């Protein structure tokens, strides 16, 4: 049985990042987009943890904690905005929210 090396972690992380990015770019539902953003953040977390483990340096973990905190806050704010938006527009489709056009 092969041991789990840093490369495996990085591959997982890259896969998650890819999935998240494609989700952000392609899905129309803002809730899904927010979830995809969470995926991207978690890909980053995996990276941080993997390197922290590999380099035996705890800084990466500290950063991961920060990123989680940040993700929570971001999700809270994002969902709050989303609810306010829904109240006004009665939609959560990102392509229907295009008021910033000139």
């Amino acid at each position, binding site marked *: 049985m092969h041991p789990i090396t840093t490369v495996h972690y990085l591959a997982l992380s890259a896969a998650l990042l890819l999935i998240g*990015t494609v989700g952000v*770019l392609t899905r*129309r539902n803002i809730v899904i987009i927010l979830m995809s953003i969470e995926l991207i953040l978690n890909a980053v977390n995996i990276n941080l943890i993997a390197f922290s483990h590999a380099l035996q340096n705890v800084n990466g973990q500290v950063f991961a904690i920060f990123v989680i905190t940040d993700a929570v806050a971001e999700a809270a704010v994002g969902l709050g905005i989303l609810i306010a938006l829904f109240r006004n527009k009665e939609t959560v489709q*990102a392509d229907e*929210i*295009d008021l*910033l*056009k*000139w």
Partner: protein
Amino acid sequence: MNFLETIWLIPLFPLLGAALMLAFGKTLDPQPRSEVAVAPGVEPVYEHGHGHAHSHGHTHDHGHTHDHGHTHDHDHAHDHGHTHEHEHGHHHHSPLKFLVNLICPGMVLLSFIFSAGAVWQLSQQTHRVHEVVNFTWIAGLPFHMANGQMGSFQMDWGFLLDPLSSVMILVITGIGFLIHVYSTGYMAHDNGYYRFFGYLNLFVFFMLMLVLANNYVLLFVGWEGVGLCSYLLIGFYFQKKSAGDAGKKAFIVNRVGDAGFIIGMLMLLSTVGTLKFTDVNAVLRTGAFTPEVAGIGTLTIITLCMFFGATGKSAQFPLYVWLPDAMEGPTPVSALIHAATMVTAGVYMIARSSALFELTPITSTVVASVGAFTAILAASIALVQTDIKRVLAYSTVSQLGYMFLALGVGAYWVAVFHLMTHAFFKALLFLGSGSVIHAMSGEQDMRGMGGLKDKIPVTFRTMWIGSVAIAGIPGLAGFFSKDEILWQAYSSPKGATILWAVGLTTAAMTAFYMWRMMYLTFYGESRVAPAVASHIHESPVSMTGPLTILAVGSIFAGWLGVPKLWTAFGENFRGFEHWLEPVFATAAVEAAKEGEHSASIEWTLMFTSIGIAVAGILITRYFYLVKPHIPVRIGAMFPRGHRVLSNKWYLDEIYEFVFVDGLCKAGGLLLGAFDRNVVDGGVNGAGWFTRFAATISGWWDTWVIDGAVRLGSFLVKMLSYPVCILQTGRVQGYAFFVVIGVLVFFGYYVVR
């Protein structure tokens, strides 16, 4: 006390009186009815029962009965005496009235005292000219004179006392004072008492400024001021339309003359370079301006313009028409302004400019001719007038014509002499007529008089003296001055037989119309309306006193200028001419030539004029006393002539037609055409041009200015279009570009 240094105070006294009256009179006036002046002949507007309680005491003071029932019955149109009695109860003891009576005549009396003192001190000097300059009035303004030199227009507030102005101030303040005293009686029952005296004092102020001024500009101040006061006083009974109209007429006619005076004055300034009397005379006497024998020169135009001004103020043809209408004013005003003083302003002005008029024989001829013509024209109108004051008004115009005749023939001192004697007897006659009107309860028509001589004896006797004086009976004032004028008109180098003949005819007419007035008023059967007859009473002492003094003056004033022929009288009796000699120095040279005429001619002429005056009186006596139907028959024999005279030669109508209607209508048409073509044309043209310019400007704006701006915006829009399509407003689209960018960066670093 040195009165010569205080001559500037002389006009200030009446000014103070006028200021007090006009500023405080109304507030102090206790009477409840404010400004309802009751003119003679205008029905009083207040109820009668109120006044009767007061009127009793007063009517009994006058010593004649007052029939109540009667006065209520008769027509109130001539209710002057009636109002008089009503008003006395209210006003007789009014403290304000007492104050007015004290201040206004008092101020004029003060002026008279100062004038008399100053004239006395002047007569003690060898060089009988005294000038007091109070301050510089108009600082020196540079200007170009007619000869190209630079002149300086500087006017002083200065006063000049010389023999001429001293005669004038004595006449103005002396006779003015008597008329003020008379007015306290005559106006006693008129409302607006303080206003009347305020205007009267103001008039005296301006008149004194006129004669005491040391330059033409200050003279002009007085000249316009007396015109204003004349207007105010003619229109004193301003509720009467005719009075207001007469005031306006006087004012406007005078302005016509004043325009001439101003032009003459400015041309004189431009020619001589100064308007100060002494300087003008000094320049003219240097000989720099030679007498113009033929042709119209600058000086002739100047003098003609000034004479035109004088015709307005002194009521000469063609501008005399205002004076008869001025009789709408209260009678004391007619006496003071329109007989004794203001109308002599023109005579004074020309006498003052004698050095100038001496140089212009053409103007002198014009002055003499106009004077003679006015004299006979006015006298002929006076022959048929029935209004007692209008007879005197035309008589005044006629007598002023005599003065201008004298001025025109170069006999300046005679003109001033006649001015003075005329002031006495004409003031007397006017005040006497006022006393008659007063007695007749406002009646002015002589056809409603007659037989008054025993009822108002003092008025009758004084007016008798005045009429003898004006008719030219030897021994009284009018004879001396009028005879001297006739003699000068005949003998002076500038005189002519025709001028003398016109003067003589006028003298006959004068005797006729004056005695016609006397006979119609005082003699014969009484034609007085019975309603009026019961009120006839002699005027109070305040009125008869001045009459008596003026009558004395009318007798003796002439003895200052006894004819040279009367060698029995010493030089003292010819003091007037000698007194004025310094003023008319150049004229005296001219007059010296008159010695060529023999004494016998002068005697003949004198007896002719005396004879014609006596004949005039006798004919009148025959016509109006012995055979009263004759004038009626003569009138019927020449209906056209009588009508022409009654209508004053239709001159008012001609003026109405030519100037008021003709000139106004023609002017209106011309003005209309001018308005339509030039004024409207200008406006329309300007409008069209503006529209045209606006069209061009609009085209430029639309296509060039806006075009450039719109081209700029169009280009920006075109260039920005590709960028615009990138902005979709969709978050994911932007995120896509971010990812692309990140990938590009990565690709770059990976490939590198």
